[in-house]
C-alpha cells in the first residue's frame, strides 16, 4: 500500500493540473477543504445512507426500545407485531438487544478509530517530519508494533485481565494498540514525500513554527489518507470486537453485536432455526462494513484522481456514443424523409 500511494502522487499532481485549468479563471475559488470532499456517486450515496441510518439507529434506538435484558415467558418466538425481531430463548426482545448492541459496537468502532488514527498520525507524521533519530526510533517502534500478531495478543490480554474489569475501554484500547502500525507506515511514507516539497520549505523559510508547518501545511495534504485510514480502522475494530466477543472475550459491561452473536451461538439459535436471533446482528455488521467500505472507495478517488478521471472518461464516452447514435438516427430519419 505504501508503494501504491507513493507512486500515484506525481500522477495526481499531473492530473489535477491541466484538468483544473479550464474552469480556472472566471469562476470563484472554492476553499481548500472543498477539494477534499469526494464526488457524489451512487455508491457513495448508498454508503453514506447505510452508515447514517445505522448510526442513527445506534444513537436513537436504545431510547425508544424497552429493556433488552427483561426475561419473559415467551421464549424463542418469531418476529411479530409485539416483538419486531422475535425473542431469544429466555424471552428477551431481539430488536431491543439489537439497538443496544449496535450502539455498543459503534462506540467501540469510534473509540478505536480515533485512538488508532491519533497514534498512527503521531508516530507516522511527526516522526517523518522530524527525521533523524526520532524518525528511526518511531519507525522501528511501528515496525515492532506491526509484527505483533493482533488477535493472539488480544486473546492473551483479554484472558489476563479479569472479566469484571474487562470493560469497553479495555477492549477498545487493546484493539487500538494492535491496529495503528500499518497506517503509521503509510503516513510516514506520505509525509516524507510531502515534507520535501518546496511549499513546506517556503513556509519554514517564512518563519513558521514547526507545529504549524505540520498541522497547517502538511496535514491537509494527508487528510484523504487519514480519513480513509480512520474509516478502515473503524471497520476493523467493529469486526475485531465482534470476533473477540464471539469467542467470549468481549467487553463484560456492554452489549455489542459480537456478544449478541455469542449468546445466539450459546443458545443454539442456528440448530433451533431461530434465524431472527443471529441474522440481524450479522447483517448489521455486514451492512455497516459495506457502507464504510463504499465511503472508503470514494475517498480513494481523492487520493488517486486517476480513478475519478476514469469514471469521468467513461461517462464522456457514454455521452459521445449516445450523441453519435442520436445523429445516425436523425440522419437515417432525414434519409427516409427524402
Amino acid at each position, binding site marked *: 500500500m505504501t508503494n501504491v500511494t507513493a507512486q500515484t502522487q506525481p500522477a495526481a499532481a499531473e492530473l489535477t*493540473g491541466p484538468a483544473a485549468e479550464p474552469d480556472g479563471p472566471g469562476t470563484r475559488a472554492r476553499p481548500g477543504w472543498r477539494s477534499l470532499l469526494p464526488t457524489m456517486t451512487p455508491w457513495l450515496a448508498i454508503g453514506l445512507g447505510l452508515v447514517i441510518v445505522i448510526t442513527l439507529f445506534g444513537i436513537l434506538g436504545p431510547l425508544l426500545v424497552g429493556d433488552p435484558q427483561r426475561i419473559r415467558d415467551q421464549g424463542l418466538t418469531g418476529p411479530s407485531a409485539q416483538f419486531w425481531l422475535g425473542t431469544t430463548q429466555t424471552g428477551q426482545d431481539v430488536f431491543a438487544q439489537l439497538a443496544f448492541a449496535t450502539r455498543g459496537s459503534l462506540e467501540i468502532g469510534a473509540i478505536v478509530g480515533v485512538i488508532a488514527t491519533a497514534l498512527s498520525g503521531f508516530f507516522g507524521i511527526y516522526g517523518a517530519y522530524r527525521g533523524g533519530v526520532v524518525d528511526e526510533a518511531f519507525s522501528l517502534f511501528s515496525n515492532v508494533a506491526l509484527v505483533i500478531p493482533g488477535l493472539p495478543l488480544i486473546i492473551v490480554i483479554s484472558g489476563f485481565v479479569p472479566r469484571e474489569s474487562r470493560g469497553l475501554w479495555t477492549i477498545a484500547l487493546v484493539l487500538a494498540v494492535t491496529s495503528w502500525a500499518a497506517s503509521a507506515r503509510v503516513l510516514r511514507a506520505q509525509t516524507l514525500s510531502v515534507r520535501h516539497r518546496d511549499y513546506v520549505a517556503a513556509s519554514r523559510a517564512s518563519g513558521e513554527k514547526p507545529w504549524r508547518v505540520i498541522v497547517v501545511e502538511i496535514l491537509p495534504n494527508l487528510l484523504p489518507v487519514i480519513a480513509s485510514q480512520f474509516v478502515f480502522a473503524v471497520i476493523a475494530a467493529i469486526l475485531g470486537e465482534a470476533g473477540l466477543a464471539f469467542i467470549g472475550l468481549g467487553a463484560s459491561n456492554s452489549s455489542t453485536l459480537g456478544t449478541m452473536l455469542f449468546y445466539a451461538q450459546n443458545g443454539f439459535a442456528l440448530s433451533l432455526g431461530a434465524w431472527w436471533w443471529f441474522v440481524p446482528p450479522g447483517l448489521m455488521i455486514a451492512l455497516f462494513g459495506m457502507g464504510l467500505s463504499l465511503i472508503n472507495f470514494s475517498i480513494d478517488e481523492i487520493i488517486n484522481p486517476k480513478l475519478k478521471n476514469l469514471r469521468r472518461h467513461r461517462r464522456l464516452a457514454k455521452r459521445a456514443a449516445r450523441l453519435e447514435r442520436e445523429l445516425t438516427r436523425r440522419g437515417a430519419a432525414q434519409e427516409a424523409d427524402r
Partner: protein
Amino acid sequence: MTTVHVTDLVKDYSIRSGLRRRRLRAVDHVSLDLVPGRTVALVGESGSGKSTIAKILTRMEKPTSGTVEVALDDGTPVRGPMYLRQVQMVFQDPFASLNPFHSIEHHIARPLLIHERTRTAAQTHERVLEMLERVNLTPAETIAPRRPHELSGGQRQRVAIARALAPGAQVLIADEPVSMLDVSIRLGVLNLLGRLQREDRLAVLYITHDLATARHFSDEIVVLYRGRVVERGPADAVILDPHHDYTKLLAQAAPDPERGPERVTAEAVIDRDAIDNSVCYDHFLGEWVQAGTPAARGARAGRAGQPA
C-alpha cells in the same frame, strides 16, 4: 537597507553508501557580498552549489563553516528571528512552492502575521491585496481567494515574490526564479523583480544558469564550478571577457545566432575534465587568485564599493 556579508562558506554533506561514509563538499570557501540596490548573479551548472548557498542564506541548512553576517544600514547586526524578516527567498518551481491546499491569500497573510506586520484580520486582508497589486496581480480581490492551481506559472511566481516580500524583506534570494516559466513570461517576471528592487532598494542574489539574463539583470556575476568560485566580476566584464575555462564554456553554450553552427563544436574546444576549479579570476583585482581558500580581507574591501 540591509547588507549581507558571506565569508568563507563551506558546506559538507556526508554521503552514506553501505557502511562507508564519504564527504562531499558542496560549497567550498565561497565569499560574496549583497549590497542594497545591487544584484549579484550566481551562475553555475546543476550541482555546482548554487542552491546550497541559497539554502544556507535562508537558514534551511547550517553551514559547516564560514559566516553569514547580515547588518542593517546603521551597522546593527541582524540575528535570531529578525533574520528571516530581512532575508527571504523565491523558489525555482512556482508549481511546487505554493501549497495546493491553501488560497493565495493564506500564502501572503502567513508571513505578514508571523512577522507581525499586521495585527487585525481586516488589516491583513488589505495588506495582502496591496502586495498582490505590487506584483501586478490585478484585480487583487479576485486573485486572493483563488488557489494555486487556478493560476498560471507566471502568476504563481508573482505570488511567490509577494510572499517573499511580505515580511518586509530587504534581501531577496531568487533561486532560478524564471527557469520553470514559459519563455514568453520570463521577461515580465524579471522586469517585476527589477522594479521591486529599485523601489525597495533590495539586495538581490539572482541564482541562474542562464548567462544572458544574468548579464542584463545583474551588476556582478559570480561563477561557481564544483562548489568553488572560479570567476567573479562586473556583469559585462565576465560575459564579454571570460578568463576561466568554465566561464568560456558557459558563454559559448549560450545560443548566439551570429556564430551559426560553429557553436556545436564549442564543447570540443574545451575539455570539461581538464577544467581546473582551484583558480579563480577576479575581474575586480584583475588577477588570478586561489579558489577554495579563505578569502583575503583586502580584496573584499576594495570590491564592495566598486560601481558596476
